[in-house]
């Protein structure tokens, strides 16, 4: 027989809780006696009657614990079980409600205590995001920061705190994540599977998960890290955390990192970290002379020994013939815009865009400017979203622009993206299809519309129905953004 007796000073539980704990402990196999009780005179006597030696110098404000079991192993297990029971007893109290209505939580910290939470999602205005995110970390939760306009020092402070606590900060300006099957922000409905994504780019992540899902391969988790994570200042703090976590995740067999090209020093850090992982890693870097996202998806499939499908494509009802003129790309997804530009630049030369800077550091295109030459505009960029919703939620600005481009006779091809998934517009084709029809009707057969449709069959908008509606309006529709961009560039390049 092994015996354990201790007094925990100043620890108080009510007698009903303690009686329940005692009963649960005594009910364990090979535990002969167990008592948890406040050290009142009565309980000290009870302990003596049970054959234990009560500790000296204890009073009603102290907790007595006494267990007798067949051997040390059983005893140790029982002591561990005791701590769990006592912890549960206190946490049950936190969620206890009683009479009256519980007012809504007013801070992340307060809400965190109310459910069995794993993650906080912060989308409050940027200047206030830091304190809510810090609150999440303090409460032991990883956090996704959807908010933008957070100063970089705050981002670094949050990520350092997260590293100390072994938690993850996704963001700021993180639009997409899939964690444990839950799609956060803008995310597609994808099946569970072996590929883990680490993404500094939201729509890049959506393009990859949609293509892989289309090929029958699911996602374990897609962890966003925020667009600045691989910058020299932030140094890949979240990317490194995310890589280590996915490497330890039994469900993840292959990792893909999606990002704009990192600074050289950060690239070195990441490369070094990747070398130490036991999980293979692919890079999707949005850069000239790098694989495009579709090519990376295909490499992932090959690495997993899975067949590469023909990517879904819905040809325009009237065959689109090459014609002279310019490509005008109107995008909701920044990374899709970036990728399309990289591809089109290969074929067509320089392209005007709000994502590009001139030699003097000015934006190569700004909001309100008329398009000249080939142009691609990211409507999700800050200058369009200040004070209004993202174009994936509110398409008004982009539709206005679409009509303006159609009225410009030098515009030969309109390239549009449509991003489906949770959080996005419930039926983007409902507004876009008539706009496309009007645009085509206003021209004399010298305009082609090409749509890059990023989504899965399981998305709430129903990808295939969206594709059909857009196709019926006269557009050529592609699931691969890269293919859509090549098709668009090919139309103006001539035979």
């Amino acid at each position, binding site marked *: 027989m092994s015996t354990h007796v201790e007094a925990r000073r100043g620890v108080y539980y009510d007698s009903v809780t303690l009686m329940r704990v005692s009963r649960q402990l005594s009910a364990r196999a090979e535990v002969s006696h167990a008592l948890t009780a406040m050290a009142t005179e009565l309980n000290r006597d009870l302990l003596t009657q049970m054959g234990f030696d009560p500790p000296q110098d204890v009073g009603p404000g102290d907790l007595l614990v006494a267990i007798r079991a067949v051997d040390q192993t059983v005893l140790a297990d029982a002591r561990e079980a005791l701590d769990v029971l006592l912890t549960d007893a206190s946490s049950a*109290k936190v969620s206890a409600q009683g*009479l009256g209505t519980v007012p809504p939580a007013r*801070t992340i910290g307060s809400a965190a205590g109310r459910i069995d939470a794993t993650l906080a999602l912060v989308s409050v205005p940027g200047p206030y995001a830091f304190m809510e995110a810090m609150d999440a970390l303090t409460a032991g939760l990883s956090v996704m920061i959807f908010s933008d306009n957070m100063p970089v020092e705050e981002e670094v402070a949050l990520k350092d705190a997260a590293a100390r606590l072994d938690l993850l900060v996704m963001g700021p300006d993180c639009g997409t994540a899939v964690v444990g099957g839950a799609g956060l922000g803008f995310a597609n409905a994808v099946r569970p599977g072996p590929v883990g994504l680490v993404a500094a780019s939201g729509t890049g992540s959506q393009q990859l998960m949609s293509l892989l899902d289309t090929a029958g391969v699911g996602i374990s988790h897609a962890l966003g890290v925020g667009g600045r994570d691989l910058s020299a200042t932030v140094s890949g703090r979240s990317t490194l955390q995310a890589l280590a976590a996915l490497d330890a995740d039994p469900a993840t067999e292959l990792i893909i990192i999606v990002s704009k090209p990192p600074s050289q020093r950060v690239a070195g850090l990441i490369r070094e970290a990747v070398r130490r992982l036991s999980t293979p890693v692919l890079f999707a870097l949005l850069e000239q002379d790098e694989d495009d996202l579709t090519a990376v998806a295909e490499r992932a499939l090959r690495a997993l020994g899975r067949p590469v499908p023909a990517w879904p494509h819905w040809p325009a009802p009237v065959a689109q013939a090459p014609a002279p003129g310019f490509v005008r790309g109107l995008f909701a997804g920044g990374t899709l815009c970036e990728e399309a530009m990289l591809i089109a630049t290969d074929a067509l030369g320089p392209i005007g865009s709000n994502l590009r800077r001139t030699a003097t550091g000015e934006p190569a295109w700004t909001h309100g400017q008329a398009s000249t030459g080939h142009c691609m505009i990211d409507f999700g960029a800050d200058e369009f979203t200040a004070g209004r919703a993202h174009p994936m939620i509110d398409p008004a600005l982009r539709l206005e622009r679409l009509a303006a481009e159609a009225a410009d006779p030098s515009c030969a091809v309109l390239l549009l993206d449509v991003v489906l998934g949770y959080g996005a517009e419930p039926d983007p084709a409902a507004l876009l299809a008539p706009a496309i029809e009007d645009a085509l009707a206003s021209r004399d057969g010298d305009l082609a519309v090409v749509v890059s449709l990023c989504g899965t069959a399981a998305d709430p908008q129903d990808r295939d129905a969206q594709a059909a509606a857009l196709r019926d309006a006269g557009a050529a529709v592609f699931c691969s953004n890269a293919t859509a961009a090549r098709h668009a560039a090919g139309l103006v390049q001539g035979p």
Partner: protein
Amino acid sequence: MPQEPADLSVVADPPQAAAASHPIGDQRGARLGGLLNREPGIVAAGTPVLTDALAQQAVPVESVDWRPPVPGATEPLATVLGHPKHAAANATAVKRLLASRPHLVDVRPAGEALGLTAGTFFHAGPPVTWERASGPMRGALIGAMLAEGLADDPEAAERRLARGDAGPVTLDSCHHHRTVGPMAGVVGPSMWMFVIEDAEHGGTAFCSLNEGLGKVLRYGAYGPEVVDRLHWMSAVLGPALRAAIRRHGPVDLKAIMAQALQMGDELHNRNRAATSLFVRELAADLAEVEGGAEVLRFIGGNDHFFLNLAMAAGKGAADAARDVPGSSLVVAMARNGTDFGIQLSGTGDRWFTGPAGVPDGLYLGSYGPGDANPDIGDSTITETTGLGGFAMAAAPAIVRFIGGEVPDALAATQRMYEITLAENPVFQVPILSFRGTPTGIDATLVARTGILPVVNTGIAGRVAGTGQVGAGLVSPPAKIFTDAVTALAETLRP
């Protein structure tokens, strides 16, 4: 685009080797607190579109009713919340507050216990001068001058207090001397004090003895009956209590308070259960000492007798939580009838003050809001330690007295969980399924949410000498919490 893999696009290992080292379901190796292998549960603050999208996927979501912080607080809040030691500092401070084990160990005259000399008085709230003192504070000081024999009549007392003749009188805040006092909280050398010891941390705290209701010094009355009662308290009540307590041994106040909460007290405006429990504890010993019967009769007629013990217990607990660098825990809330002041654990003895408000409540007899003095007293030490207004749900019997209904009491306590750091494991509210009282006000949470601490209070008459005119609820000025957070931020900047 060329299809050659670029420099970074390396496959670190052949794909097949990966999964073997990670047995399925092994939680011990999990990173990020199990983020990747637990069922997701999300807490969300911000745009409802994102919460709706989660609900659409049947993911459990707890939404925050988020609002921007109090104006001017954003920058200091970011500094304080972003400091690596802040969370741990708050945890340490509130743990000390909760762990405190106050025992009543003695009753002694203030002159002896606190070294208080003739001509010096302590008072409630942050420091205040005679010139800025309100009616009830002035009345109480006049009464104390008379009781101490420093003046023959109120006019002479007033002249001397105003430094007109016969030398100055020194005033200081009770809080500066481990002491608290209800309402005006005036303490003179001849007044007897409860002496509390914190068995956990070894600290000591003091509070005067409760005079009862009606025309009493703490409400600013100074007539002959007030002075006579004070003399009786010094001559009979104090010595008898001392003798009884010395016979009995230390009285565990925390145990009495925990039981009283379950008997309908909130220990600020209702102390009927606690007073009864205290008397029961001490009755046998009181019966054995000189004046015991008189003392039992006096306490029996004063439902608020225990208030001063609850306050001293609170002061001991709050003082145990002082001086933790970086902590935004409120360790004092107190009013002097002119100013409402708070102190934080991380900002030492500095007071952050604003104008004391006039309580909103019910009035006795023909008195009305026009007769009310701004908020006064150290009894907010009860709210500071998770009692009083914070434990309102435990005391439905008195909600009408302070101008509310039972649902208001439940809502008040529930709301306070949003601005406190912990739930007291000993002080429980039966009607909330024995949830612990919301304990330990975090000034950063007040500044973030704009939710102000709810305070139950008595209302003193505006004119010196009037006494109590009512009871009700009052809020501190919001600005003092922002000021305190701003000052704390200063201490944390490199």
